[in-house]
């Protein structure tokens, strides 16, 4: 059984947000609903200032707070590590939205459930890469299988010292960041 993971290399990210758009197109999301978002902030003091960017989406945590707080069991983790939501079981309490440190959930106002990135499981099952990965112009995103010892992802994580975002929170995310 594979264990899917992603590396997001912010040093290669051009902040073009093609990933956000590709994701919206792939899933046919209503306007304003984004599964992957770009956060930005200014750091430093004039004249030494720069803008810092960070791509954020569901981290497919191994110890996912959203699964723990979900009162219905609608949110679950597949054996391959992908965290999904069973639309029909969701009671709509929004506890998952409150408990997610990454604020990865957005409400779909048509379906009336809080949704999030699904690691493009339908593409991955066909051996393709998630939409955000294949569209990225700077190859800032890498998608791989941690269970496969020959997968490039091991080398990338090791070489670039990619680390989970806020690993100190103990959620054991499946996305590793280079920053």
């Amino acid at each position, binding site marked *: 059984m594979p264990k899917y993971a992603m590396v997001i290399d912010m040093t290669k990210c051009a902040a073009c947000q093609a990933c956000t758009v590709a994701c919206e197109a792939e899933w046919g999301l209503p306007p304003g609903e984004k599964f992957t978002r770009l*956060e930005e*902030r200014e750091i430093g003091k004039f004249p030494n200032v720069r803008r*810092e960017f*960070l791509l*954020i989406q569901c981290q497919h945590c191994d110890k996912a*707070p959203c*699964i*723990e*707080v*979900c*009162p*219905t*069991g*609608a949110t679950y983790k597949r054996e391959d590590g992908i965290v999904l939501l069973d639309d029909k*079981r*969701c*009671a*709509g*309490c*929004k*506890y998952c*939205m*409150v*408990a*997610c*440190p*990454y*604020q990865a*959930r957005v*409400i779909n*106002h*048509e*379906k*009336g*459930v*809080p949704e999030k990135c699904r690691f493009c499981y339908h593409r991955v099952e066909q051996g393709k890469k998630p939409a955000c990965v294949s569209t990225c112009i700077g190859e800032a995103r890498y998608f791989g299988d941690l269970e496969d010892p020959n997968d490039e992802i091991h080398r990338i994580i090791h070489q670039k010292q990619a680390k989970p*975002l*806020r690993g100190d*929170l*103990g959620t054991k995310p499946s996305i590793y960041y280079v920053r």
Partner: protein
Amino acid sequence: MAWGIIIAIYLFLAGAGAGAFLIAVMTERSGINKENEALVKAGTILAAPLVAIGTLFLVLDLTWVEAGKFEPWRIFYLYTHFTSMITWGTWILTLFMPVSFVYGWMKLKNPYYTNNALRCAGAVLAFATSVYTGVLLGVVKAVPFWNNAVIPMLFVVSALVTGMATAILGSFVFGGKTLPDFFKPLHTWLAVIELLLLFFLLMIAANGPEAARQSAEMIISGKYSLYFWGVLVFLGIIVPGVIGATASPKAGKGIKALDALLVLAGGFTLRALILLAAVPVTLMN
């Protein structure tokens, strides 16, 4: 944050209802008589309707309800996952409402009716209601301002304070005139404890991680400072605390009702501030 003013209304009503039941039971245990029977009646019979109205707000906040869908069966899934405080809360509310309603109904017909099993079950469930609403927020690591043990304690104290105010106002409707003797010291002590807990909460937050500091700042000196200092601390705790501590037991209904209304305004402001000042952990550092 995903939870806003509608959830604050729920937390407030559930707290006031549960607190009213606890205060009524305490009054009954202190010896029920002609003087306090109106209060015992009011406290027990008001609990279930208040919690039920609160629960209605909870339902209104569900995403599928907001989306205009009628799919009530989804509510039943809420009973199934015991790692979630909401599953615990759903069970607690489901049990507390009928138990408190039956006890309140019996008390309404005859204030001297008593049933140990029903009273104990009601009191335990009332306490559980006030505790779980605090733990609900306390376990959320994603919001450092909430992630501590002060929040549940504050919620229990707030439930008792607002419950006492609710029972007092309700007792006037049932023709009550005087309050039980233990109300005066209890009122003062609860006010002192509430102020202390608020101080602990804000001190911990102000010295905590970035997100908690932002929450504390919003409340102490930022956009919610007027509501915090003006409505909660001054009008909601200090003024009624002083009235409660100094007013004679024979004081008129007017002053007691004012005291109770101020306490309720403060209690709602507390719940609203705690929800609205929530800031999720910072990711960009």
